């Protein structure tokens, strides 16, 4: 039986993998990939919560569905995140390319112009 915990554990594992990648990788693209994984881990958690929230909460009106807003909140969040992630990926990749052109590297260790 697939329970909420499975979703949460999967999300947590994915998140940790993504975090690990984002923190340890030197390549900016890899860091971005790590971030994407973290975002998707969150998405899984959101959707999981959304689904089980619906299953576990008995309807106030007698037939399953309570209220469309409550039902879909988590999934709408997930869609938002996907959208933002796409935009972020586009902007971030553009910046990475720009930085690569300028500095001939995508090593995040060397991109520290904002320090001090």
């Amino acid at each position: 039986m697939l329970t909420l915990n499975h979703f949460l554990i999967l999300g947590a594992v994915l998140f940790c993998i993504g975090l690990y990648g984002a923190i340890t990788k030197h390549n900016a693209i890899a860091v971005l990939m790590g971030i994407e994984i973290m975002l998707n881990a969150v998405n899984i958690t959101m959707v999981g919560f959304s689904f089980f929230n619906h299953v576990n909460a008995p309807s106030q009106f007698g037939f399953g569905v309570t209220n469309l807003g409550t039902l879909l909140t988590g999934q709408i969040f997930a869609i938002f995140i996907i959208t933002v992630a796409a935009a972020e990926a586009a902007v971030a990749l553009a910046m990475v390319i720009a930085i690569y052109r300028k500095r001939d590297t995508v090593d995040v260790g060397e991109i520290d112009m904002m320090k001090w």
Partner: protein
Amino acid sequence: MITMALYENSWLILFAPLLSFAVIIFGTRVGDMLSRPRVEASTPHEPHHAVEAHDSHGEDHGGHGEDDDDDPKVPSLSAWAKISAYVSILIMAVACIYSWVLLISSMVPSSPLPTEGITVFSYTWLNVSPLSYTIAFHVDRLAIAMLVVVTTISLLVQFYSQGYMENSAGYARFYSYLSLFAFSMLVIVFAQNFLVMFVGWELVGLSSYLLIGFWINKRSKPEEQRPSPAEANLQAFIMNRIGDVGFILGIMILFVNTGTFEFSGIEQHITQYHTSPALLGVAMILIFCGAVGKSAQLPLHTWLPSAMEGPTPVSALIHAATMVAAGVYMVARTFPLFADASPVAFQVVAWIGALTAFFAATIALVQSDFKRVLAFSTISQLGYMFVGLGVAGSEYGVGPGMFHLFTHAFFKALLFLGAGSVLHGLHHAMHKEVQDMRLMGGLASKMPITAATWLIAVLAISGFPFFSGFYSKEEIIGLALEHHDIVIYLLTLVTAGLTAFYMLRAFIQAFGGKGGKFMGLWGGPYRGTGEVHESPWTMTIPLILLSIPAIFAGYWFGFYSYVNVTAEHVLNLNVGALLADPLTWLGVVVSLAGLGVAWGIYGRVELAKIHAVVESNAFLRTLHRILYNRYYVDTLYNWIAVYVVLGIANLAQAFDQYIVDGIVNGVARIITSAGSDVRHVETGRVQSYMIGFFGGVAVLAIVAIVLITTVGK
């Protein structure tokens, strides 16, 4: 018929010199400056040319050129400069005549001037009931007596200065200062309360400062132990200020206790409320500190010898006859308060006076500088005046002290003006300033008028019988004994002998010498160079005029009761008793002994031989050195000023810079350095930010979980 209006308008005398000061400063002196050719500095000439041109004409100038910083001269005085002098002299003459009219009219028994005097002019600064700060002038007989002295001597000195200051570049300036001085001195004379007295007191200090420093660029002469005028006037002002602090503290004690500055008001309050004599004594001693400063008494006397760096007429006017007498006048003015105070106050006055008189006389014995001898003799004579005030008591009142002031003013002015005449002659003969008596000698045959008048003054100051000094001085010595102050008596008696000795010594060194007539008294070999001539008539006339009161001023036997400021009647000088008293003749014998010894030594032995004798004897040599260096008091004061005062000042400066400002800047530095350390956290690496971010979230999450799990249950 004598009317009150005569006295009520006497403030005109006060403001007359102020008028001449204003006329000179804003009128004639401006004209004088404008009429002068522009000095080189302001014209854009090439420097080398100017110097060469100057050098080629250097011989013509004979040391009197523009460049002569010691005593800058102009080729000839402009009309404006002369007008300055005339204005000043004319106005002073009017004031002098008015003063004499006041004097003579107030001596008439039917005179409407009340004993306590009248207020002639007043306005209020601040009135916070019951306090009032009022400028008020007041005239009574004591003031009139002083008025006569001040205006007469001022007039003669101003007249004399025409000759002495001939062709001086600062001729107009000199007269403006003299007028300012006369005004300041008259403010003291006219003072009705301590506020005005203090005002005059400080203004006199200012005029003295300006006049001592008249030759602004003159150099010091360390080989003669002579400071530059710029040093001398600074010293004079500060010494006076030290006394003034005591003065103002005394005024404040009286003020907070009585709520008034007026002499009469304070006196009234004291008798009415029976203020404690001890407190009053403290106040009066503090006030006497002011007199100590102004009258150059021990221990604030060092400024007066230095003040001799001013032009000689100035020395005559303010450092002998008038300003230094202000201290005496002030004590006389506040005599009733002294009388009400604890007797210690009078004792302090008398003791300081006696010690100073003796102390200064011993120093004067060995000085070789002509003017310095006179300076110390002034200090010594002022000491006599304070003894006179201190021992007179209510029986005689201010009379004895003031009488000596009165007679001394004339013969001391005469001495100084005579000295000025000598210096003037020597300056013309040697083309440089000479004050050393070792370079004089035998001048009597060359300057007979100066010498004769000087001899009169010497006899007067020595207390030679029937000269003016005899009556005033012997009376003071006698009173000291009458009061059973045996030490004071002995000090004053011995001082009389010393005075006679050093005065005749100075006379013979300058005017006589071995080989002169009358056993070396008159004429003899001249030790300087050049041809000395008698001074012009502008200078000799004042000498002749002054020699009259130098002899006869002592014959005003009603003086004591005339100047009496206390309510009670006082005794007059009893000439019969004075002449009949054997002790008087003891004093005369001592003086004559002093004269005789001086005559015997300096008239018969050559100066060089005397020096050799002194140098050969270890004791005499040491004594001579100590006395010649004025007991090293100046050295001590210098040391205190340089090491103690400046040391504390430097300490304060260091404290301010390193501690106070250090703390402020330290706080600023701590904040900046903290900021610059902390900013290194910002590495610019996204990943380290990420660690911080997620680490923070993790910590918060743990805290949240702990809180939920523990608090919830």
